[in-house]
């Protein structure tokens, strides 16, 4: 008798608990993502914890591999097999592609309740909203037009922060004369592409960037300005150390941290490496916009989407979308991740100098209409076209193509990928 009573009591308790938590008592949400390294994983933990308190159990599907190439392969396989996860991390034109295939669930109800339309910059909405429906929730905004300089080395050669491309070259010449490798670079297509988009924006300005990268206008791609861009790429290559081929980005950052090299062109995730090495922004290292790109921001934003086919986990995925857009969570998340909040209405109180500058620049660029998607990180052009750009850029940078021939090759490659 006692045992039966205890079962009854515990069942009643369970029902009561379930009721108090709404209907989400034992919901599971499978989330596919590629944030497996230290800071990223810790930042993601905040989202997990918040969901947990709301009664959603986070089932982790981590697929290691930068920029999510492997994760996308796994996702493809699972969707093809009819077993998609409930939600996942997506980037740029992948969101558009998945949405075109009808794979992403409509999260408009959450978005309207949260006032996303006012809080998010328009260029981000162009990805998060398809055909008038919200389908993705951005948690952060990274910008890719940063130059990171080792302050000690900068002071040693008596240099100042360069504001134009010519000043950058003058500074690099000073480093070279002092026997310091001026530019740390990793010869991987996406890193070559990151430098390329910076040089392009610096050379041609935001209007040229929009024409060449976002609209892929053949006239712009084959123009003399583009030839100048490639010539400048070849010029920058003379400031690399000889062993740059195939180097990972964080090893290039480590060269700047250790003082083996003076500067690196990289997105703001590089800040995490500096900070983890005990360096302070402004004091031990300098973060400036890539010379000539001041006033513009090329962005890369991490977004979460719910999968249509994972409907059984629907309510939990909606909760995830709401949490991701929570201002408080975005502030805490980005303090760890090193990016800036996707919402423009988050106060910058706790951020460091680089973070504050990033948030200010984001606001300004949004108002001026110079916030544009990064090519190298999938927000400038669809995957096939992005890779076509990479093909030409890496070939030119590695001396397989001349700067004269590169614009024509670019026109052909982009046309071939369309």
């Amino acid at each position: 008798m006692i045992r039966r009573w205890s079962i009854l009591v515990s069942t009643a308790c369970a029902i009561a608990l379930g009721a108090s938590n709404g209907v989400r008592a034992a919901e599971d949400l499978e989330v596919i993502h590629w944030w497996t390294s230290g800071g990223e994983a810790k930042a993601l933990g905040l989202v997990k914890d918040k969901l947990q308190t709301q009664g959603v159990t986070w089932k982790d599907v981590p697929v290691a591999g930068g920029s999510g190439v492997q994760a996308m392969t796994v996702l493809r396989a699972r969707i093809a097999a009819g077993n998609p996860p409930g939600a996942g991390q997506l980037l740029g034109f992948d969101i558009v592609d998945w949405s075109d295939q009808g794979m992403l669930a409509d999260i408009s109800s959450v978005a309207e309740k949260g006032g996303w339309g006012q809080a998010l910059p328009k260029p981000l909405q162009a990805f998060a909203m398809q055909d008038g429906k919200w389908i993705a929730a951005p948690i952060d905004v990274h910008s890719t037009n940063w130059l990171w300089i080792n302050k000690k080395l900068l002071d040693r050669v008596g240099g100042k922060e360069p504001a134009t491309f010519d000043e950058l070259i003058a500074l690099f010449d000073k480093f070279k004369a002092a026997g310091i490798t001026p530019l740390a670079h990793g010869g991987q297509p996406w890193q070559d592409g990151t430098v390329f988009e910076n040089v392009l924006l610096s050379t041609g300005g935001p209007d040229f960037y929009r024409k060449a990268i976002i609209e892929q206008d053949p006239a712009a791609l084959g123009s003399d300005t583009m030839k100048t861009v490639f010539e400048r790429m070849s010029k920058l290559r003379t400031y690399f150390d000889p062993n740059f081929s195939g180097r990972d980005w964080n090893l290039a950052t480590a060269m700047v941290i250790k003082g083996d090299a003076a500067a690196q062109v990289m997105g703001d995730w590089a800040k995490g490496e500096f900070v983890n090495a005990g360096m302070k922004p402004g004091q031990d290292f300098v973060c400036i916009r890539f010379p000539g790109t001041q006033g513009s921001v090329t962005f890369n934003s991490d977004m979460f989407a719910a999968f249509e086919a994972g409907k059984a986990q629907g309510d939990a995925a909606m909760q995830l979308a709401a949490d991701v857009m929570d201002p408080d969570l975005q502030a805490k998340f980005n303090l760890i991740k090193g990016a800036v909040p996707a919402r423009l209405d988050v106060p910058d109180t706790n951020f460091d100098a680089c973070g504050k500058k990033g948030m200010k620049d984001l606001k300004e660029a949004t108002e001026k209409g110079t916030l544009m998607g990064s090519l190298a990180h999938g927000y400038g052009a669809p995957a096939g076209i992005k890779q076509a750009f990479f093909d030409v850029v890496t070939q030119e940078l590695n001396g397989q193509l001349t700067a004269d021939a590169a614009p024509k090759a670019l026109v052909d490659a982009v046309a071939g990928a369309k």
Partner: protein
Amino acid sequence: MSSKDVGMQPAGARAAPMGLPASPSRDDLVKQAPPGPGSGGVGWLQANMAKLVLSPSLAVTLVFVYGFIVWTVVLSFSTSRLLPIYKWAGLEQYARLWATPNWYVAIKNLGIYGGLYIAISLFLGLFIAILLDQRIRGEGGLRPIFLYPMAISFIVTGTAWKWFLNPGLGLDRVMHSWGWTSFTFDWLINPDMAIYTVVIAGVWQTSGFIMAMFLAGLRGIDNEVIKAAQIDGAPTLQIYWRIIIPQLRPVFLSALIILLHMAIKSYDLVIALTGGGPGNATELPSTFMYSYTFTRNAMGVGAASAVMMLMTIAAVIVPYLYSELRERRT
């Protein structure tokens, strides 16, 4: 991954056993099994044991090798980009494939890599096998040393050679620190020479295995013939050139088939060693196939390139199989 595997499985699965020394056939094993009590059920089981044991692996092979080959062929005629779509596109994907400059780079690299890899592996394998066949002392210790690289995966080989050939870490630096400062060996980061570093690493990995095949072949040659030649006063070089090497013809053929399919399916070695770079200097059809299928959202083009690779292997394997089977029948 499926379509990558499709291109290479049949050759890998089928070519390997052909060249190896014969193991006791399944019929022999069944015959050797001790006779059980003669009841009907057990008798049936005994009679059909081989078929029963083989049927799961046959089914698995049918689905996962031949089934996926068919799937890949279907995809190559579809408009698939991000996900498989079954909408007829005719030969459009093949037209796109043959209009892609990267594909020509990949084919040219396969020509250089495949040609040198096969030629050097065959030559080195035979040469070492002949040296080992001189009844030298310590052969039992030397053989595994040569064979050992084969036990390492291509990823490990690629990574090790990447470090070894990197001018800032490996050979170059050691030479410089020993005082030979004018020494340069920068093939790994030189777009014109990078493909040859893949050849070096590939040969290092495989030639020991080819050596083992030739050694087995050499041990199988009738000593009487060689002794007769020696009595007739034929010089050693002549004996090898005229008598022994011609008798190794079947081993040559098996080694060639194995090396050929390994060359065409080479993927992990390139990824670990150069990542296809610098630029696209070491792109191979296999890396091309993976990147177009999975990272460039051009699944149809990727499938078409996989079919082209399969056709290349089939062009070699099918005549070989045909001649093998015909010989066995007569």
